[in-house]
């Protein structure tokens, strides 16, 4: 086994508001191996985007990392200074945001933005800039002629591709993606995902991919973290999760999707709505919506219990985990 590329340990993020401190990410730990495709799923407000921002050291007030470590290639990024982070950003890890529309500079051509990025990390000649820009555009499947185009001249799918091209300028080891396909139509979504997976396999970078779409998770990821209310509800290899979802929330997520080809059956989804994190419920955070709720769930906070290779935060598995250990 190689050392993990990224190691997140006990990461906790609070949003400090006047009324109450909201714990958006609560004691999250995970690792990413080189070349691995890790998916983080959960519904809106579960803290998945905050987690990404915390990992990338992009949180701004009122969000604050109050505990935990983010160790990337041997450095604890939480403790690094601005300058050190700046030299690592984009060269060692890069980020593709949900909406490329808002992430690209509308006043500059795509090529000029690539040039800025390349120049920010060292002296590169004009010829090198042109060569590398053309290369990455070809990688993501856009005609390099579009280097002269402005973001508004590109379609949504092409803008997202341009964003990904920019993220690959230095061939980083880690690319963080925050729902890069959710603003696109189904067909464009599929084609972009296939491209991302191809690139990932050919160039060997690791991906942390945030989404709420279980079908994307299943098709493309190696491992999944299911998040609920700022905590990891379940962490396992993708096949395992789909063969044998352990947490009642994961099971709910899986059965919330109608199928296009399978038998037509009534779906239930997950009744209720996610908890207000300023006033979290007692015990297990999922108990108000849980179909398998037990009396103990109201009082006792579940830990992450190991079940085989997987980990699950549910009291149903507490006994089993205790016996195994």
């Amino acid at each position, binding site marked *: 086994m190689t050392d993990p590329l990224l190691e997140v340990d006990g990461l906790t993020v609070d949003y400090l508001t006047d009324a109450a401190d909201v714990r958006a990410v609560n004691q999250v730990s995970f690792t990413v191996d080189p070349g691995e495709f890790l998916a983080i799923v959960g519904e*809106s407000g579960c803290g998945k985007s905050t987690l990404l921002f915390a990992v990338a050291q992009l949180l701004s007030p009122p969000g604050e990392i109050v505990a935990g470590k983010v160790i990337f290639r041997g450095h604890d990024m939480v403790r690094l200074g601005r300058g050190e982070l700046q030299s690592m950003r984009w060269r060692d890890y890069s980020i593709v945001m949900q909406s490329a529309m808002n992430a690209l500079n509308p006043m500059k051509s795509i090529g000029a933005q690539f040039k800025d990025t390349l120049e920010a990390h060292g002296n590169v000649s004009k010829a090198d800039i042109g060569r590398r820009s053309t290369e990455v555009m070809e990688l993501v499947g856009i005609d390099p002629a579009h280097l002269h185009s402005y973001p508004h001249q590109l379609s949504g*799918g092409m803008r997202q591709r341009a964003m990904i091209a920019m993220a690959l300028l230095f061939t980083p080891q880690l690319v963080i993606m925050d729902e890069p396909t959710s603003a696109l139509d189904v067909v464009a979504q*599929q084609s972009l995902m296939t491209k991302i997976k191809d690139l990932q396999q050919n160039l060997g970078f690791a991906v942390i991919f945030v989404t*709420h779409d279980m079908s994307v998770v299943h098709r493309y990821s190696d491992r999944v973290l299911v998040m609920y209310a700022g905590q990891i509800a379940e962490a396992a290899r993708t096949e395992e999760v789909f063969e044998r979802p352990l947490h009642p929330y994961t099971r709910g997520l899986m059965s919330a999707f*109608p199928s*296009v080809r399978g038998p*037509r059956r009534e779906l239930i*989804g997950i009744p209720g709505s996610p908890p207000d994190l300023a006033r979290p419920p007692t015990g297990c955070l999922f108990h108000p919506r849980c179909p398998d709720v037990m009396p103990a769930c109201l009082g006792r906070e579940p830990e992450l219990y190991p079940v085989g290779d997987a980990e699950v935060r549910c009291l149903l598995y507490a006994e089993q985990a205790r016996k195994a250990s």
Partner: protein
Amino acid sequence: MAEERNPRTSSDPAASSGSEPVLRAADLTKHFRLGGMFSKQVLHAVDDLNITIAEREIVALVGESGSGKSTVARLLARIYTPTRGEIYYRGRPLRSLRSRKDLLWYRGEVAIVLQDPFSAFHPVFPISHGVMRNLALHRPELSGPERRREAERVCETVGLGPKMLDRYPYEMSGGERQRIGFAQALAVRPKLILADEPVSMLDVSIRVGVLNMMAGLRDQEGVSLLYITHDLASARYVADRIVVMYAGHMVEEGPTETVLSSPKHPYTQLLLSAAAEPSEKEAEIAADSGEPPRVINPSEGCRFRWRCPYAIEKCEQVTPRPTPIGATQVACHVAVAEAERASNPASVS
């Protein structure tokens, strides 16, 4: 879920002619002029669309962004007036509705639910405001306390407690707001609800609840629905019939199961291949970049031909018209020719 239903269950006196559907649009067309006064750029949002919605029927209108599906909802709700073509509500042409009273009547019969539940409500009023106002406007015969009772009843119909009415929009989740959108529409006792992507902004765990509610409205309240979506799987889950649009044209139409089990139009096939199943790992994925269609001053011919793997010469010259193949209608030269060959192998031209 999609069995044959008795088409005449309503006792509405407005239902005049015998077999007339609730709503029928004939050659519905909407063009928008772009640019300045002398600009010749015309955006063809919807062209020659024929669509019917029967009693107690959920029709899904499916297509990607820019296909004109939201324009259709606005045309049917009479927010836009059509450039050409006519909409008949129970046989009565909408062009004949001129007075405020007529329009109010129509808005009471056909209600619309908007896509974004976060911007559809007035932030400073409790959500009872919209529901009560609809009741005051469309059902003036109700007294104050009756209105309140009726508002509570529609709230319960959509699965919310009566206490919800006194809440403000910011106190509610997206799913709750979307239900209030439906409650507001239901308050006027519509015969038809036009729902423009009602679940696309909602979380997956809540989506199914809203879809089930829509099916319940059809089954219990006898409401017809036009369900506009880009998600084939959810269309299949609730809809009796499906209409696929591409670049302002209807490309395929028919009973949901028939269309999805054997799609005839290459665009429907593409959509279906892109719709991933959570349960299947590998599926063959069409090499299509998903570029949106061009509909500004479009020339004659099939609008899908640039993306179509089967395009023939005829596709560039003649715009395909919807042609019946079995229970479905398909606007595709290749599919129609193939169907003809299959049914009549002797007369190959």
